[in-house]
């Protein structure tokens, strides 16, 4: 085994973002606000989204030339962690990833045209996944030449906030090569977007049929698309890991509060070791997830992710997926009969845990790839 990279730090900017985001997410996303959005069409508060844009958070990793602050993807991590802690769901993760892809591709014209709008709050979304298989490398969706334009055939699943998105970044096969194409929502046909029912009701995703859409070929991103897709998947995994780490802490706090107040058989139930000790396990899992998340945040940069960064992102996702899954499972159980009800907030976390674990690959997916990196 080669020597392990143990870098972990928090820049002054990251620290400031952490402070601001903690406060903002607490104020804007109290549990009643979260619950009020569960059955809404969009799933997020347009006013809050606009405030997020005004805070400059959509541009933390966008270069200054395009209206951002150029702090790198590591700076989105504290923001997303805080959003996770307050279950604040918005198109933030997916929009930030699209901006990142445009920059990594160094498609200057596309960057000039779209990044300032994205930084200002235009919703953009990623369309990568075609089936349940996050490990699939082959891309079925195709583009063919049609008189200077490209004509698409195929569909994507779990496209986040597709109903509201103005831009879709789509992975596809063109001339036998993987490519990324920016598709404006206006190119989609009637009925192309079918909203999915999400296990986590704070999320919104759709199946999107791109068949028949015609897009100018200058919307193709330059650069090595396969490498960019790989980086996007790793960064997506890291962002979801940061969010899950935040949600794990919140879920733990919820359970701990209950264990401190609920009495059974004459004792506060938190005094029973059969409940206390698993909560310590939850705490340690959460701490480990947080360590991996900030370790990865320290290693990612605007360059293509190296092996250390890849390894860190995968560990973060594997650890955070498991941590939230365990914390939420115990939250329901330890709330007793109350925990079985929709009214109890434990449901918010156990539903989120199932969504989060699969997003950008579950723990097995990442550990399988870590095994190749670390054991061979």
């Amino acid at each position, binding site marked *: 085994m080669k020597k392990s990279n143990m870098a972990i*730090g928090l820049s002054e900017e990251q620290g400031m973002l952490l402070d601001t985001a903690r406060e903002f997410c607490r104020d804007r996303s109290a549990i009643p606000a979260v619950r009020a959005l569960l059955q809404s069409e969009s799933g997020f508060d347009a006013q809050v989204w606009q405030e997020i844009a005004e805070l400059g958070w959509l541009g933390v990793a966008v270069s200054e030339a395009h209206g951002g602050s150029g702090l790198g993807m590591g700076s989105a991590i504290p923001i997303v962690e805080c959003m996770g802690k307050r279950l604040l769901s918005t198109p933030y993760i997916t929009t930030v990833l699209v901006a990142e892809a445009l920059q990594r591709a160094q498609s200057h014209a596309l960057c000039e045209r779209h990044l300032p709008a994205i930084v200002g709050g235009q919703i953009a979304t990623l369309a990568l996944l075609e089936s349940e298989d996050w490990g699939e490398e082959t891309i079925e969706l195709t583009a063919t030449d049609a008189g200077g334009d490209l004509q698409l055939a195929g569909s994507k699943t779990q496209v986040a906030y597709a109903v509201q998105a103005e831009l879709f970044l789509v992975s596809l096969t063109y001339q036998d090569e993987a490519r990324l194409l920016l598709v404006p929502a206006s190119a989609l046909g009637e009925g192309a977007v079918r909203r999915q029912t999400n296990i986590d009701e704070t999320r919104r995703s759709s199946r999107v049929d791109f068949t028949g859409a015609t897009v100018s070929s200058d919307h193709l991103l330059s650069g090595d698309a396969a490498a960019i897709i790989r980086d996007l998947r790793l960064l997506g995994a890291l962002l979801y890991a940061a969010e899950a780490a935040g949600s794990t802490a919140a879920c733990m706090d919820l359970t701990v509060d209950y264990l401190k107040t609920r009495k059974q058989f004459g004792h506060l139930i938190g005094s029973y070791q059969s409940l206390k*000790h698993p909560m*310590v396990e939850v705490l*340690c899992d959460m*701490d*480990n997830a*947080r*360590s991996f998340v900030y370790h990865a945040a320290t290693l990612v940069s605007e360059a293509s992710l190296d092996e250390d960064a890849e390894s860190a992102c995968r560990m973060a996702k*594997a650890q955070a997926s498991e941590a939230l899954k365990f914390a939420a499972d115990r939250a329901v159980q330890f709330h007793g009969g109350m925990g079985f009800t929709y009214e109890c907030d434990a449901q918010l976390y156990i539903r989120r845990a199932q969504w989060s674990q699969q997003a950008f690959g579950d723990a097995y997916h990442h550990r399988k790839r870590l095994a190749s990196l670390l*054991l061979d």
Partner: protein
Amino acid sequence: MSDHAPSASELADFRAEVSGWLEEHNPADPGFLLPQTFMEVGSDQQLEFLREWQHKLWSAGYLGVHWPEQYGGRGMHPAFQNEINRELRRHRTPITFNVIGLGWAGPLILDIGTEEDKAKYIKGILSAEDIWCQGFSEPDHGSDLGNAQTRAVRDGDDYIVNGSKIWTTMGNYAKYMILLARTDPTTKRKYDGLSFFLSPMHGTGIDTRPIQKITGEYGFTETFFTDARIPSSCLIGGEGNGWRVAMQTLQYERGAAAGAAGGQVQVRVSIADLIDEVRSVKRDGAPLLEDPVIRDRLVQLIMDEKALGLADKRSTLGDLNSDYPMSLLLSYKLRVSEYQRRMRQYGLEIQGGLGGLYVGDEDTIAGGFWQRAYFNNFATTIGGGTSQIQCNIIGEQVLGLPKS
């Protein structure tokens, strides 16, 4: 100790010198298994080997270099000892086994001992001539030190001691013990009746009985005091201050800057060692490391080990600890000892038929290292407060859960 903080280049030069010396003097494999911690010194053969090694290291000027010159140190800055410790680790040297002397008794005596104490004890600790042991735990009060019942009653210039201590490491080899005993059984708070002694181990009324561990080896004793007379000059820190002195003693372990003499406290066992050693093991007719189930579990263990290292570094980043400030510090012992248990157990579990053999059999992997390492690790998940007690402490102090 020198107050002058050495420059980076001074430290680098020193480190190179130490490294050079170790290249030449790090002992070769003696042909028998060496202890990974000071709690595993189970035979005269091991003891003599380790005594010789520590003496050689001290004679070369590489142990307790920040301790005062007149007592056997070199009066240097603690940063130099830290450099030595790092080189010892890197060269994977045998342990400096007189741990209770080097890390607990020595720094305590230098801090609060009399001039006579320092002259009498310190050099013997460094040279390994005088082995020290610790008498805190008692048979009926394993994790509850404050409840120690061994009695010490003042009688003229002596104290008369009665009671027994357990888990005395190297009790059969030690010349001195740091002893926590009750001088006043009537205090309101149990802690206030305790006193701390630098007790001799040889004398009438002091007997040891070796304890055979699950490994079949020795390393600990039970120590019995039966009307044993120890001079009142053995008292350190004043009567009734034993608990405070004991807590102070535990602080030195944290390294040279905290006062410990340094050295190689334990041989670190890492998942990397395990992976290297099982490369040749076969499962289903193919190399073990190609089995997907095994690979998944190994990655989990690699992550657990890495998380410990990251937690150590993260604990210094204030902003990332503000919500649960004591979490990483209080849970470290639990996490590291339980990780080691799981990892070592797995090291044995994946050996197939070889896991059924034991130390002494020539077919074992690394002489049965993993078998012994797994069993011995229970000293860390039980000693110093069991993992279950640690969970209570963390649950109550970090999460604020009600007392059990």
